């Protein structure tokens, strides 16, 4: 286990290099214009000289490989560079926002995994029953629902109709201090929406895994032993059908980040994901590189976790072979 983790960490370095380099390359090849992005709406009234001057000042006409190398060398010394869209050092951008994104994603993901699993198990219990059919239809529907839609509906329902939860922001808009209580109540909707957007995958995979396992001999054995339905479902069927779910834990992370991208902007959540799209379309290399590096680390860690969990939950998968 430790060996696998160690080997993976070694692998992380080349992957990070490849990903950031790739990011620089793709961004450079994309038609996005960093100068236009920097100038924002003002660019639409700007004349050629101004744009040219900005181009020189921002140093965006240098070859991307060179800029990547510069970024890399200074990043290794701890200087992540200056974000041009945010007009701030990248380290500050990340420092200010990372916590909130992490909070949002963690809560949402945990909720998605737990609730998704629970629903999946309950649905699998009586395949074809009304509960199963409701849950699966709902799951497919939700998987078809764009995140911004669910977000809007959630605001409409919980903030407007029921007046239960605040509609956005990290704290009450008029409040000046960040208190845990406020953050908690403001977290419910965005995290809920993000969770709901991830839920269908977990629910449906768990349902499928559990339903298949329920038909197999081991469950028959467990039933024959007189174990309670509860234990049979959770301790045997779910445990046997857990592999895809564990995989999802690792491989849904990118989707989660993509979802966070949208949720954060809809709910004015001051997180880092919303900055990602901006960084991308603005070809803000330093910020983009730092964000992708972050995402890469998250994804690598997630996948490593998933792989480790395989070994833990399915002894037939040999960690030494991965």
């Amino acid at each position: 286990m430790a060996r696998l983790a160690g080997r993976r960490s070694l692998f992380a370095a080349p992957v990070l290099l490849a990903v950031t380099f790739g990011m620089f390359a793709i961004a450079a090849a994309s038609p996005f214009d960093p100068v236009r992005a920097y100038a924002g709406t003002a660019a639409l009234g700007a004349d050629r000289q101004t744009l040219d001057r900005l181009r020189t000042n921002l140093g965006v006409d240098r070859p991307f490989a060179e800029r990547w190398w510069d970024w890399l060398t200074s990043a290794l010394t701890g200087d992540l560079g200056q974000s041009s869209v945010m007009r701030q050092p990248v380290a500050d951008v990340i420092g200010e926002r990372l916590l909130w994104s992490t909070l949002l994603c963690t809560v949402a993901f945990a909720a998605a995994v737990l609730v998704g699993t629970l629903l999946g198990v309950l649905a699998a219990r009586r395949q074809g029953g009304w509960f199963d059919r409701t849950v699966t239809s709902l799951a497919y529907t939700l998987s078809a629902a764009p995140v911004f839609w669910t977000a809007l509906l959630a605001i409409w329902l919980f903030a407007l109709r029921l007046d239960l939860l605040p509609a956005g922001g990290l704290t009450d808009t008029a409040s000046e201090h960040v208190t845990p209580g406020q953050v908690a109540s403001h977290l419910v909707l965005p995290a809920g929406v993000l969770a709901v957007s991830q839920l269908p995958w977990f629910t449906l995979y768990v349902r499928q895994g559990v339903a298949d396992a329920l038909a197999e001999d081991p469950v028959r054995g467990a039933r024959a032993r007189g174990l309670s339905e509860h234990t049979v479902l959770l301790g045997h069927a779910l445990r046997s059908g857990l592999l895809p779910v564990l995989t999802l834990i690792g491989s849904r992370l990118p989707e989660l980040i993509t979802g966070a991208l949208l949720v954060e902007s809809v709910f004015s959540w001051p997180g880092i994901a919303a900055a990602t799209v901006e960084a991308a379309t603005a070809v803000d290399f330093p910020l983009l590189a730092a964000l992708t590096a972050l995402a890469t680390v998250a994804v690598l860690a997630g996948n490593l976790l998933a792989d480790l969990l395989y070994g833990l939950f399915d002894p037939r998968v040999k960690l030494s072979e991965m």
Partner: protein
Amino acid sequence: MTVLSVRGLSVRFLMPGGRRVAAVTDAHFDVAAGECLALIGESGCGKSVLVSALLGLLPANAQAAGEARLGDLDLLAADERTLARTVRGRRIGLIPQSPAAHLTPVRTIRSQLQEAVAQLTGVRGRAALRSAAEEAAARAAFPADHLDRHPHELSGGLAQRAATALALVGEAPLLLADEPTTGLDRDLVDHTVDELRRHVDTAGRALLVITHDLAAAERVADRVAVMYAGRIVELTDAEAFFGTPGPRHPYSRGLLQALPDRAFTPIPGMPPELGDLPDGCAFATRCDRAADTCATQPPMTATVACHHPYVPEDSHA
């Protein structure tokens, strides 16, 4: 006192295209408290299906008919809830055939044992569970140092012992053992069989054991039931069956003759297709005593269902 009383139990499997497989047909037998009934018969004759039917574990394309009384409960009519909550494990224990396939592959034997102990007995607390599980393992001669293994890391015999241990946990009044001795060497077979016998003897429990190991059957059984093509064709005392005068049904005789320590010759012919059984005696095509009367179904007399059973005098013929 009868623990289990089976009357007219039949099981059919519905197959695509309207075909039916008559896995068990019209089985009648009782198992009394403190008694061990051995069920033997050719492979594929319906023994395991019979056991599954008793536990309500048949697949969805099966149909069952008849009656199987466990005390005042009709096992065939009982709903899944009753079976799951009060019958399985608690009133009827099962040692399944192919035990390795019936263990949850992703969990260690210890955790499965402890779980069973926790659910079926009053034992609570980590340490108590642990020792109870180890004790249960020991009863089935499952080595303690293998408790932390997963099913796929066990040899066939070890898996068999694990399954036996699991089935003994619930101290159920009726134990159904489907081939409890496969994969075990002679010493272990004896150990297991003795353990089962002790289990029966202690509290007036009953045992229905299915086995191909006739030596083991001889050692443990009070009575023997022989099944052929889904029907019980002979039901008699073990002593009479294994000793003198010996079995009366021609099939039973053939079976005994096939033992390696006897003639070691198989009964000629193919086993019948359960989807397409003849109207009369299913064994007739393979029977050297068959006659025209065999085209009708022989009724079950006191111990045997055959138109031309061996009578005791014949036994030395």
